[in-house]
């Protein structure tokens, strides 16, 4: 990869300052960014590591009962420390990549990258999470704006993600057998005011909510409630791993499995 300047600030304020430099790029766990830089698909002039900012690391529960996760918290830490508070989220984190990747990759990095096949966007959108940055709060419904596109402005850092905890939840991932990314992943969460269904891996627009399934499951939270639905419309990804129709079909299958597993 091309060389770059390296900065490792200890506070969010210093990180924001460092990111104001020309062609500066934030570095989370680097599990996507570093391979991208090796291929010279990215060549930042400065990398600003967010891995030494104590206020951005850790899992806690606030007085509203929401699970709050620092932006630089690794998947392994979420899998372990969120288990008692939000088991569906912890289970999703425990399925990302492989153990070594989970020890480096971070929730903020995953959400900022918004890979169309990543797992965390499904949890954030499916939970109606709040994405807190150094300058504002962004609702998950307004945050995801298409494949690799988010509401983040240049230099803006995800400092924390707040998840309202559902009554029941489950994530079902149909893995692409070589990469282990989600060919289709569905996160289902049942809240007192309704059910949310978020789908990753399937659409060219990235993560999305399947509104028809949400309505049907809000009325009756049972696997059979979606039987009569057609698979979701939309621009499904079609590639050598699966056609658009196949992916749409998988969305329905994985939604049913998630509902059944959520209990």
């Amino acid at each position, binding site marked *: *990869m091309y060389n770059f*300047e*390296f900065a490792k600030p200890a506070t969010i304020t210093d990180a924001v300052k460092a990111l104001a430099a020309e062609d500066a790029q934030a570095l989370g766990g680097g599990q996507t960014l*570093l*391979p991208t830089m090796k291929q010279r698909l990215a060549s930042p002039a400065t990398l600003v590591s967010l891995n030494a900012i104590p206020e951005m690391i850790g899992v806690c529960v606030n007085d509203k009962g929401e699970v709050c996760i620092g932006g630089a918290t690794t998947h392994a830490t979420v899998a372990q420390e969120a288990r008692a508070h939000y088991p569906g989220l912890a289970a999703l984190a425990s399925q990302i990549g492989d*153990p*070594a*990747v989970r020890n*480096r990759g971070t929730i903020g990095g995953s959400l900022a990258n918004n890979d169309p096949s990543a797992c965390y966007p499904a949890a954030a959108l499916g939970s109606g999470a709040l994405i807190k940055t150094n300058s504002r709060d962004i609702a998950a419904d307004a945050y995801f704006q298409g494949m690799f596109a988010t509401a983040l402005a240049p230099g803006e850092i995800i400092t924390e993600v707040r998840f309202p905890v559902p009554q029941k939840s489950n994530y079902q991932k149909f893995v692409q057998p070589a990469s282990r990314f989600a060919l289709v992943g569905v996160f289902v969460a049942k809240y007192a005011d309704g059910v949310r269904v978020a789908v990753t891996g399937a659409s060219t627009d990235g993560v999305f909510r399947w509104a028809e399934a949400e309505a049907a499951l809000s009325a009756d939270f049972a696997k059979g409630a979606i039987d009569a639905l057609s698979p979701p419309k939309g621009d499904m990804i079609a590639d050598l791993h699966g056609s658009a129709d196949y992916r749409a079909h998988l969305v329905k299958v994985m939604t049913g499995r998630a509902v059944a597993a959520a209990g």
Partner: protein
Amino acid sequence: MTQVTMTVNGKSVSGKVEGRTLLAEFLREGLRLTGTHVGCDTSQCGACVVHVNGKAIKSCTALVADLDGADVRTIEGMANPDGSLSSLQQAFQDHHGLQCGFCTPGMVMSAAALLKENPKPTEHEVRGYLEGNICRCTGYHNIVKAIMAASGQDVSQIAAE
């Protein structure tokens, strides 16, 4: 250039590195610890797995500059103090858990991390934990068997397929 200091296999090392220097490069080219292998360089194969602050990571996908102050352990730091193989390494030899040996350093480091977290893993748990370690020779059976044996479990019923 960034000045870094870290502990590698119990010894303090320091040096100036470029921002882009990967941990795997620093270990292999800087410290001549060539037991850590780079197979794919895309964080998929796991031959480069080392422990950083007690956790398994892929050293081809971590910057040295980001690991200042870290405690690193590589395959060279796995043997017993007298130089004999650790029980995990010995189990790989006893159960023929390697053929060409290229993936073995990463396999041993991942297995050691697993056994620290989960001292008596099931076969399913071993296979799950090795998802990020690719071996092209053994078909994994004997690697799994070696790790099960190293955890003190009876492996006589596991077929050497």
